[in-house]
């Protein structure tokens, strides 16, 4: 049985929304960060699904670059989180309140 592309697109939209909600309501940087990764991967799924519908491999090629970028983002993000953790010994964005307008 063939699964139509629109199902994949729908799934990616759901994943993307979960990611957005995760970033907005969670307060732990690591979890927010995972939610952002979820958003990126939702976009990847959409790209592959659209690639099949459109009938050219561009979408899949883009996914490669997105994955590489996501890996770089993971590296930078984790490094920043580890640095903050070393300075504060705690991890919550609510603690990041040195600057308030």
């Amino acid at each position, binding site marked *: 049985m063939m699964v139509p592309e629109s199902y994949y697109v729908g799934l990616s939209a759901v994943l993307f929304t979960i990611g957005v909600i995760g970033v907005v309501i969670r307060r732990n940087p690591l979890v927010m960060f995972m939610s952002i990764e979820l958003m990126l991967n939702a976009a990847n799924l959409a790209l592959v699904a659209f690639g099949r519908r459109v009938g050219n491999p561009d979408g899949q090629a883009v996914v490669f670059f997105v994955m590489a970028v996501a890996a770089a983002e993971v590296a930078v993000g984790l*490094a920043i989180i580890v640095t903050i953790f070393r300075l504060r010994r705690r991890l919550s964005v609510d603690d990041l309140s040195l600057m308030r307008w």
Partner: protein
Amino acid sequence: MTDLVMPPVLLGPLLPTLLVLGAGALVLLLDLSPRPQGKEVLGAVALAGIVGALLATLARWGKSGRAFHDMVVLDNFALFVNVVICYAAALSLLLSVDYVRRSRAESGEYYALVLFTTAGMMLLAAAGDLVVLFLALELMSLSLYVLAGLFTQALASSEASMKYFILGAFASSFMLYGIALTYGATGTTNLDRIAAAVAGRSHDPLFVIGMGLLLVGFGFKTSSVPFHMWVPDVYQGAPTCVTALIATGSKAAAFGALIRVLTVALRGAQPDWTALLWIVAVLTMTVGNVAAIAQSNLKRMLAYSSIAHAGYMLVGLVAGGMSGGGSVLFYLLTYTFTTAGAFGVVTLCERARAEAVEVGDYAGLAERHPVLAAALALFLLSLIGVPPLAGFVGKFYVFGAAVRAGYLWLTVVAVLNSALAAYYYLRVVVYMYMRQPEGAPVTYAPSLAGALALVVALVGIVALGVVPAPFVDLAQAAVAPLVR
């Protein structure tokens, strides 16, 4: 099995970017050399890379080139933005030489990251394809996230880095999903082919949502309201020389890419995005200026002021056409010199072994360091838009374009905002010239390179203010092929 056709490799249009990246790689290699002294060489190499890129950019003027299946489009528009970015990067490098030495940071990484982020900015302005746009944006942003938190002794710095990272990555994800939906709606990621694919059916819901998400991402990167929350915290917490780069270079690059996407891919939907940007421009100007009034921290005040200036640039975008687009490019140039100069003065002022960042710290600066105070006063006057400085001419052309395009009310709001802005800029001038300092006075952190940067910025704002016409003509010529 079909034969593979090898794509032609034309590195010419990438030359300025490659020079910067090559300098970055060289800095990394030199940093590995065991000699602990001579780290200043790295700064010199980095500066040489930027100057080389600037010269290569100027040499290519008028010769537009496309490479890698139109993925990179180095036309006059990109070249103009590249010039702005090169100036921003060079000024920021000059300002940071002594700053980096004083804070004893890992200078090799610092210079390499500045070069990588500059390369990302230059590529962003030349992106003819949404994929390159995304990659360049990430190259720029990821380097900036690290730069913002590189001086980790200060908690505020790593806090700024964290906020910048989370919100920036959040915005990038929106952008990427927008790219995915646009690809689904049109079957391509190339800007020209997107325009061709949606010709006559630009209200396709998938395409509208995709482009909407893309614009949300741009809103973050150009610090437009309602996506401006990160700006004050990041500008305040990041090292000041990095703040100067974020405020000037990354904004110029983001506006460059935004103009290209709007005028090329969304050519057919101009009335729609004009209406949208009208609202965003009014909000951005007003929120930026009103919030700036309440600030006592100079860096934070300049952050809100930079939000307001993004609003003025959006006014030029709303005006559209050759005069509107050209005025935005010219505004970017004037804004870069002015803002980099203002942040430059902040890097040179110390109080009690820390940076002088409170407005109150600047009380009595005119008596102790008249030259420095005069320089900051000139930059602030240029930000207000006092003739004959560059800021005035920039505003003049942007507002003029808006009036000619028939956006009278928008111009009225913008002019009122400029008047409002005068209050908080002048307050700093009043402190410098008419107040006596309380407690320890501000001292000048001597820096030859920093002084050179201030001189370059001052010459820039005076020259652009006195003889703007040739530069405006260049800016309009640069934007002409896009708007047609």
